């Protein structure tokens, strides 16, 4: 295998290992050296106030889901932008124009969303003015 290629990813590997190591070390240390003297009051969810009833998992609003869908669409757009950015120098003005058309079409969708009020989180009366 191309030794040069693999070794170019060694910094990312070191970064991963470092991140995992630091996270693991923090958890391990707090588990090892933290004092644990549990009392019933300490173990209750809230020290004062009502005990929670039921499950914390409530069905989400559809609005969050819509935002997630729109996020994926712009995510895919970002992938095209990455490829474009790599070869932009070679393409020159031509590359700029084709990407402008691409982005214009997506901007139409963005404006549509905006006007439809998908991005408004609060009820509409404050926006309409």
């Amino acid at each position: 295998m191309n030794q040069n290629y693999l070794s170019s990813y060694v910094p990312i590997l070191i970064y991963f290992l470092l991140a995992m190591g630091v996270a693991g070390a923090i958890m391990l240390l707090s588990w090892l050296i933290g004092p644990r003297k549990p009392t019933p009051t300490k173990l209750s969810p809230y020290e004062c106030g009502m005990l929670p009833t039921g499950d914390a998992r409530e069905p989400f609003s559809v609005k969050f889901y819509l935002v997630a869908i729109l996020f994926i669409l712009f995510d895919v757009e970002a992938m095209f932008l990455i490829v474009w950015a790599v070869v932009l120098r070679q393409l020159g003005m031509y590359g700029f124009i084709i990407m402008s058309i691409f982005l214009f079409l997506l901007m139409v969708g963005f404006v549509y969303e905006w006007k439809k009020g998908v991005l408004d989180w609060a009820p509409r009366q404050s926006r309409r003015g």
Partner: protein
Amino acid sequence: MTFYEVTFYVLAVVALLSAILVITCRNPVHSAIFLVLTLLSVALIFLQLQAEFMAAVQIIVYIGGIMVLFLFVIMLVNLDVAVRQAPYNRQRWIAGFAALVLLAEFTLFIYQGRDWAKLPPAAAEAVQPNTELIGRALFQNYILPFEVASLLLLVAMVGAVLMAKQR
């Protein structure tokens, strides 16, 4: 065994084990997290095959985007019902049989094709940057499909907004 082989087998084992855990976990959120692990190891295998762009797409779109969508679907539906249901239904024997047949087919195919379907030898040195190759192909030869892709994204956007607004 070379370093390359060791990393490949480790990644393959992680991918397969976490894929099995995806379908055996009772908690759908745990399944989703294991699916992230599966996709991540597949991304690293892509990276090992010098398909850098594929690895990046796998991580950004699948792990970053699609998995968010999966988790949102899990949050949208009522989880308690799903946890109490039996994870397998009565078709599991049929499914297992079909999987065995498929396994036999693949084994036969690979066994028979090991002579004539040889992979080309890996390029030893100076493989061109993957992302750059894709970029040049996309923006020079496939310019129309590229612009149509933006139209497709626009349609998806409008469709998502319309469907959500009807509720």
